[in-house]
């Protein structure tokens, strides 16, 4: 009896954070800095900044020029669907699909990595703010549910997280894409500057440099981080700390407080719910290395295990109070899957500029913010899209299909090739109740836990939008005088944007949403969910910055509620 009490004491913290990705890292930093003894659980292996195994390798240090082998594709065939992740320099950041299966009713791409830092290591780093256009959209269009917050609620938290992580960008004064606390912007190249001018003159749209979480100037509060070195090897992990990741930024801050206990290889299988208290008292953990089951307890729990990770835990947390999944009185848990639809746009070749080039490798491109359906809807679809793109001079591969051979080929390759330019759209996907994920109890993973089954597709609004996404891109490139303009529109599955969102949405009404405006489970006040699952709508741009802002805000609220004994 005493033994148990002791064990329980030993396993009791003020707070538990599940996950160490973008949201979990922020929750860990904020909770520990506010003085809470915090247990941070990560299902994958330990990764410590700056120990990223391939980060400083030269191209010739990889077998097969870095390409995936047949064996890699056997182990990580689903993760390889992106076309860019399963390579010798980055494959270790993505899960083994044989060990981590899921079921897809329609093609569904679930791209993820299980390790400390999660996808904050290989994220795209593009960082944009939601605006009131986004927060008001559901209410105006009369779909799904209204966001329970508006821009003014979140704006100071965007300021707060941007100042800490470092976001490089250009102030543009666009109401639909609010400016942030920016570090110096990166440069557009000659051809992109030309596109910018043409798009402004001919279409009255904006081309700006991408807003990225790169330190283009020193960040004195994070001495372990240096500035961006323009290597463009970000997704290997950056030993310079040139971009924001949990490993380089928030976890070191949490560690510094002395209040964090980080436990890797810890798979949270479910939340422990106390019917009498009406609260979650802790989590059940399966040790991924030993198979041992351990329980940990805390006053407040932050689920930051990724959209589907957290939803999986909640769906698997069954009690008399919550027979259909934790906090799932609304029946919305697992529903309203969103992502951004992409792989549609246009490219072309550029004549001239032969005496101009660039130096350094910019891990960024240009951005064209949303311009469709601003103010009022006047297309045959609602919402909109933005574009990300870049211009560059071609390298050796452009000469494979040219006549050069032998010594001529060698000298031709040494001269920078023609300029080319391309852009791809990122389109908003609406929150459809019919796009959902459920637990699959018939198919267990190697730990004996139920897996997930996804049933989600692009629907009419997205498919109509894609026509504009291809046509508008081609039109802008042609108007700028670029040649051989080709549209593309590839068939994709939801998930390929790796921006999954929405399966535990926030809303005003507990009958139609899982979380309240503080990311707090409506039906269980001491559980907060701050990864992408809270998103009520998707907007059309990279969402991670928002997860950071909402997480910091939720922690601030949770700790003040805790102090008032309200949790």
């Amino acid at each position, binding site marked *: 009896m005493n033994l148990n009490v002791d064990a329980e004491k030993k396993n009791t913290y003020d707070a538990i954070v599940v996950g160490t990705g973008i949201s979990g890292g922020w929750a860990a930093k904020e909770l520990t800095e506010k003085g809470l003894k915090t247990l941070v659980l990560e299902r994958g292996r330990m990764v410590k900044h700056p120990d990223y195994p391939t980060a400083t390798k030269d191209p010739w240090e990889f077998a097969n020029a870095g390409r995936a082998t047949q064996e890699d594709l056997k182990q990580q065939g689903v993760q390889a669907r992106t076309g860019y992740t399963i390579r010798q320099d980055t494959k270790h950041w993505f899960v083994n699909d044989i060990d981590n299966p899921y079921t897809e009713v329609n093609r569904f791409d679930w791209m993820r990595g299980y390790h400390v830092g999660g996808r904050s290591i290989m994220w795209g780093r593009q960082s944009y703010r939601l605006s009131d256009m986004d927060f008001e959209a559901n209410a105006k269009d009369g779909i799904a549910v209204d966001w329970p917050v508006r821009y003014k609620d979140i704006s100071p938290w965007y300021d707060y997280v941007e100042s800490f992580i470092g976001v490089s960008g250009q102030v543009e004064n666009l109401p639909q894409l609010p400016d942030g606390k920016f570090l110096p912007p990166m440069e557009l190249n000659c051809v992109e500057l030309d596109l910018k001018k043409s798009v402004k003159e001919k279409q009255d749209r904006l081309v700006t440099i991408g807003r990225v979480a790169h330190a283009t100037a020193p960040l004195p509060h994070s001495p372990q981080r240096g500035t961006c070195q323009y*290597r463009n090897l970000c997704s290997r992990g950056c030993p310079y700390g040139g971009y924001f990741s949990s490993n380089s930024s928030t976890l070191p801050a949490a560690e510094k407080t002395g209040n964090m206990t980080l436990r890797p290889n810890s798979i949270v299988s479910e939340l422990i719910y106390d019917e009498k208290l009406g609260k979650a008292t802790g989590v059940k953990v399966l040790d991924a290395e030993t198979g041992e089951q351990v329980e940990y307890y805390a006053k407040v729990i932050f689920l930051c295990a990724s959209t589907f990770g957290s939803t999986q835990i909640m769906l698997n947390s069954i009690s008399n109070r919550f027979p259909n999944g934790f906090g799932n009185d609304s029946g919305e848990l697992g529903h309203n899957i969103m992502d951004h639809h992409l792989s549609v746009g246009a490219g072309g070749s550029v004549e001239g500029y032969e005496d101009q080039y*660039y130096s350094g490798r910019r891990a960024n491109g240009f951005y064209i913010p949303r311009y469709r359906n601003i103010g009022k809807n006047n297309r045959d679809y609602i919402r909109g899209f933005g574009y990300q793109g870049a211009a560059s001079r071609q390298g050796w*591969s452009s000469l494979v299909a040219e006549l050069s051979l032998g010594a001529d080929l060698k000298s031709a390759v040494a001269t920078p090739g023609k300029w080319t330019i391309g852009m791809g759209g990122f389109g908003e996907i609406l929150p459809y109740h019919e796009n959902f994920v459920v637990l699959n109890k018939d198919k267990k993973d190697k730990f004996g836990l139920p897996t997930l089954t996804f049933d989600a597709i692009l629907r009419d609004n997205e498919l109509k939008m894609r026509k504009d996404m291809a046509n508008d891109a081609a039109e802008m490139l042609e108007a700028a005088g670029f040649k051989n303009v080709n549209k593309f529109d590839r068939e994709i599955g939801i998930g390929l944007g790796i921006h999954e969102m929405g399966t535990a949405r926030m809303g005003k009404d507990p009958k139609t949403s899982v979380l309240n405006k503080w990311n707090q489970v409506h039906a269980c006040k001491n559980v907060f969910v701050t990864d992408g699952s809270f998103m009520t709508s998707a907007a059309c741009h990279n969402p991670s910055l928002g997860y950071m802002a909402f997480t910091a805000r939720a922690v601030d609220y949770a700790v003040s509620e805790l102090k008032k004994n309200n949790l």
Partner: protein
Amino acid sequence: MNFEHKIKDMDRREALKRTAWIMGGVVSAPAMMGILKGCAAKPTINWKPVFLAENQGILISQVADIIIPKTDTPGASDVGVPGFIDQLLKECYSKEDQDEFLAGLTAFDEEAKKSHGDAFNDLSAEKQAEFVKNIHDEAIKAKSEKRPFILKVKELTMLGFFTSEAGATQVLQYVAVPGSYKGCIPLSEAGNGKTWAT
């Protein structure tokens, strides 16, 4: 390789060039290497194939060196491209793609026999170069949707070569840690003005 060796190498190359001129033809890099090593009779390779048969490995080596010969910078076989191709075929190609590649190789050799009377490996360096050029130029002009064998070898040769240290740093330019980005500068100010390797 130290400086003294380089001088010696240059002298030897110079001597060979003169020999070639006397013989009235251009000597291909592998043939030159053969002469240097004193074993011009039968082409061999100094690496052990893991996927290809020995004679297929020899063929790939010779074609690769015609595609990217040694000039004032190393050529394909100097940096191990043939072995790179062999390994990549084994590890990265599906069974179907492997079979297709081997069928292409066989057809390539048959074509050499048809047009020059001998298997490719038995042709003179001059005939090999001529044959490769003809097949290559036809393939480029045909613009077929499916990449023909010769262009697959060309692509693999270029991939192996330009991701090698010599290819990336001597033929192209490579900076591991640029430290800054300049978006729009005169070509002459972009390092040494050559194509960036990455």
